[in-house]
């Protein structure tokens, strides 16, 4: 995402200070100040100027601001800029490193989000806890159920009702800087071994129980979703042995990989595709011993302060023309055949984004029980504080 914002400076710094001093002296009104300095948005917030909301297509009052909770490096900033241009609603992007963190924030109440991005295995729990409402599909007419690949999208429905619409699917593998690490790697077993040797002090794991514990389990030959105490104990032993050799425990590894502070990291499809695109020496590898395959969804929290805007953005993102641009920018594979039809060949043939079926076979979808299992939660917390 090296792309620069195109909009130019609305006003020069000296002119700004001049106007600011005039305002301070009281010789101009606040509205004049906001007008000339281009603080249109601030003016809209303060004065609630209805004319600024624009977007005749949106009959409903969408307000001027909304908030989305999502994952690191998961959207093209241009998408939100386009949404703001179309509707007058500015989008605040909050970034989280794990589903557990999102759940914790929603459980504590008043998250302030109007839309968020939970992963497949969490949706049934959100429904059970009453934290999300059934979606009114009519408010997202751009969504097309018939063109979805149901292999990925089933978990958005609970008891026949739709609670979440698919964003994209993906895999959890690892990214390795082959300029720094010469040993070829093919499995999670390799990952945890090299993290202690060739990548000593340079490897990262997610701050996320599902993948960090799951991949440790896989490297030991167990299921990604295991909650068996004896298997978890083995995984804990491995993780605590590896911990002193790690560079960091963080789900946002792109900055560290790009700066070559880190050479090896657990990695999601979209980050792998972005890193590989900008730095070809960074390879993205799926464990031949296993790992995760997942789908992320959009859902609306029950206590969302601006549901109208939440639906508007949801519908906007479901538009294939928007989704295809998002796809090209962030590199996560789509569940919607309408979007696939629009994609250029270099994306559909990219093996990081659309791996061969054989590479996907050993992977498992996350299981709902891992989200709430106290054993896994406590293991992760112990690992981090060890």
């Amino acid at each position, binding site marked *: *995402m*090296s792309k*620069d*914002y195109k909009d*130019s*400076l*609305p*006003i*020069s*710094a000296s002119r*700004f200070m001049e106007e600011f001093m005039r305002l301070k002296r009281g010789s101009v009104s606040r509205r004049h100040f906001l007008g000339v*300095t*281009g*603080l*249109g*948005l*601030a003016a*809209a*917030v303060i004065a609630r100027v209805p004319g600024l909301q624009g977007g005749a297509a949106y009959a409903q009052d969408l307000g*001027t*601001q909304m*908030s989305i909770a999502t994952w*690191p*490096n998961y959207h093209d900033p241009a998408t939100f800029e386009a949404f703001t241009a179309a509707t007058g609603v*500015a989008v*605040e*992007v*909050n*970034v989280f*490193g794990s589903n557990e963190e999102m759940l914790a924030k929603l459980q*504590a*109440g*008043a*998250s*302030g989000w109007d839309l968020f991005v939970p992963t497949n295995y969490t949706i049934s729990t959100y429904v059970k806890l009453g934290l999300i409402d059934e979606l009114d599909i009519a408010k997202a007419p751009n969504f097309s159920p018939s063109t979805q690949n149901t292999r990925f999208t089933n978990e958005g429905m609970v008891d026949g009702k739709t609670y979440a619409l698919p964003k994209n699917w993906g895999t959890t593998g690892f990214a390795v800087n082959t300029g720094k690490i010469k040993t070829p790697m093919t499995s999670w077993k390799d990952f945890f071994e090299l993290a202690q040797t060739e990548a000593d002090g340079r490897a990262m794991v997610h701050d996320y129980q599902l993948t960090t514990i799951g991949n440790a389990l896989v490297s030991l030959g167990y299921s990604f979703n295991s909650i068996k105490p004896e298997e978890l104990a083995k995984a804990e032993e491995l993780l605590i042995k590896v911990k002193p050799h790690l560079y960091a425990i963080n789900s*946002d590894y792109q*900055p560290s990989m790009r*700066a070559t502070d880190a050479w090896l990291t657990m990695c999601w499809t979209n980050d792998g595709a972005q890193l590989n695109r900008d730095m070809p020496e960074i390879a993205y590898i799926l464990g031949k011993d296993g790992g995760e395959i997942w789908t992320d969804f959009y859902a609306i929290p029950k206590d969302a*302060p601006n549901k109208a805007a939440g639906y508007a953005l949801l519908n906007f993102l479901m538009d294939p023309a928007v989704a295809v641009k998002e796809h090209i920018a962030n590199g996560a594979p789509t569940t919607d055949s309408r979007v696939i039809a629009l994609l250029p060949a270099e994306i559909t043939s990219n093996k990081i984004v659309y791996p061969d079926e054989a590479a996907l076979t050993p992977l498992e979808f996350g299981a709902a029980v891992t989200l709430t299992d106290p054993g896994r939660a406590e293991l992760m917390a112990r690992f981090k504080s060890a």
Partner: protein
Amino acid sequence: MRALVSAVYLFLYAPIALVVLFSFNAGRNASEFTGFSTQWYGKALSNGFLTDALINSLIIAFTSATLAAVFGTMAALGMERLSPRARAVFDGLFAAAIVVPGVVIGIATLVALVEVFAFINPVLASLWPGERPPKIGLGYGSIIAAHGLFSMALVTMIVKARISSLGRDIVEASGDLYATPLTTFRQIVLPQILPSILAGFLLAFTFSFDDFIVAFFVAGSKTTLPMYVFASIRRGVTPEINAIATLVLVASLVMIVVARVLMRERKAKTAATE
């Protein structure tokens, strides 16, 4: 010695210089200087979320510091008149408010308020005559309250120290001369403790304005400036953050200089009248 002290000042200011430098970066990355530009100042000030966070922080810092200054001063004056045992209880509570780590204050306040709201909101709903009963939740109130706790203890501590060094005879003399207690307070006591109240207010404001961890837990859906900065660090810092930090720094420097000048003038005036 001089070299060592210079090195420490360099250590203190190098990161600040870096922050200011990157606020003039042309590129959108806060880690690679690609050319000079002032565009981020404009962008920062037209970013509604950033300005909202700044305004929230100013409102919260000002309100909590003001309440702390008023209630803290009142408490410092009142504690003088309490029995030794009651005073000891207050001393202990104020000390606790200062030394209990912010992270514990944040968590404990969150836990308590979530329980209180879970109790109050249904009651409120059942008593409410209209269709949509109001729902109390976390927000300005909870941040101001949690910040005010520490700040009030701070103000009380500082003002009390000043009061204890205050001469009593002049207060008694004022009484002997038939001044009402209120007049005595306004004309004798207040001018003497005012500098310490102001110092307490400033400290309280600074604390609240820079606090992250307490607000992180009790802010609900509100965002303060430090929370916004923290979220930015996670999603990738743009020079907007550097621009706002630079503006805040410049504003506080201006305030220090103005305060200095005012104080010098006042001193000159008092010297002249003497």
